[in-house]
């Protein structure tokens, strides 16, 4: 019987079924086949200024919860947001989202290594539980980003309502999602996470509205670099 090494399996982005296989450029990032370019750099740049939507599901994630999760992360050098429903950056390359009083989502941006470091620590610690993550993740940016979100979300996501380090868990396009506002390369963007099985649906909804408003799909390299 043929043996497979699960670590060598190339995953496909949970959003892939909704993305064009032929016209987009695909690359394997973090062992995940991901669409990294949808049009020429000039077109993507123009889309991004109006309303760019990028699939960043391939970024490495690590979920952990439990009464001792905060202490466990602090001992491993992870900066922790002080209050639930907030986020912070750790070592410039790692997003740390505090989803509750004792639940965290760590996401390495391209070039970050915190998640692999945490995952390699296989010692079991009392009251610390790993939470498997299979998120679809998106970046939405551009001058029309708020108009897109106002069609999909009933909460006010403007700067005066959604503070810089606030995290909200709400419904976007009718499904549960986590949303933050962040400044990437000097540009305000919204980050959205939802369950991976909803990824194609979320992508289709975002792209449909983005296209109506003059934007469209852009590759993640427009926002992230290692």
């Amino acid at each position, binding site marked *: 019987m043929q043996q497979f090494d699960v670590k060598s399996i190339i995953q496909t982005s949970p959003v892939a079924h909704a993305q064009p296989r032929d016209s987009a450029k695909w690359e394997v990032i973090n062992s995940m086949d991901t669409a990294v370019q949808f049009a020429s750099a000039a077109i993507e740049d123009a889309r991004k200024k109006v309303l760019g939507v990028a699939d960043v599901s391939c970024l490495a994630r690590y979920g952990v919860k439990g009464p001792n999760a905060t202490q466990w992360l602090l001992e491993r050098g992870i900066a922790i947001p002080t209050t*639930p*429903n907030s986020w912070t950056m750790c070592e410039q390359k790692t997003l740390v989202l505090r*989803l*509750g009083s004792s639940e965290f989502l760590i996401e390495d941006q391209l070039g970050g290594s915190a998640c692999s470091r945490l995952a390699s620590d296989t010692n079991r610690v009392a009251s610390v539980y790993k939470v498997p993550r299979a998120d679809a993740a998106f970046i939405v940016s551009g001058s029309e980003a708020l108009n897109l979100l106002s069609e999909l979300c*009933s*909460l006010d996501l403007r700067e005066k309502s959604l503070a810089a380090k606030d995290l*909200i*868990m*709400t*419904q976007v396009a009718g499904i*549960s*999602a*986590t949303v933050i506002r962040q400044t990437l390369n000097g540009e305000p963007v919204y980050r959205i996470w939802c369950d991976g099985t909803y990824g194609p649906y979320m992508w289709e909804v975002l792209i449909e509205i983005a296209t109506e408003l003059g934007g469209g799909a852009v590759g993640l390299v427009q926002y992230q670099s290692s």
Partner: protein
Amino acid sequence: MKLLTCPMNGTRPLSEFVFGGEYRQAPDQDTCTDAQWAAFVHNRSGAPGDKKEWWYHSPSGTWFIAERNTLTDKVTSTYLLGQKDTTQEAGK
């Protein structure tokens, strides 16, 4: 749009919540009679009035208690189980 206040996430549209049934304290199963246990399992009070109810904020996975008058549909307070002292007044 109807609104409900989650004690962890703030005021949100009712569509983000799932009703979890009335909050009822089970009788001590070691000491109660069969009749008391059967009444707990099978009987519900449908009379309108002030009730404690379980509600679930589905985007964040938060279960909490809402005190609601089922006649007027007015929610007077919401709080995490066992944390009534930190009650948030509904709608604030």
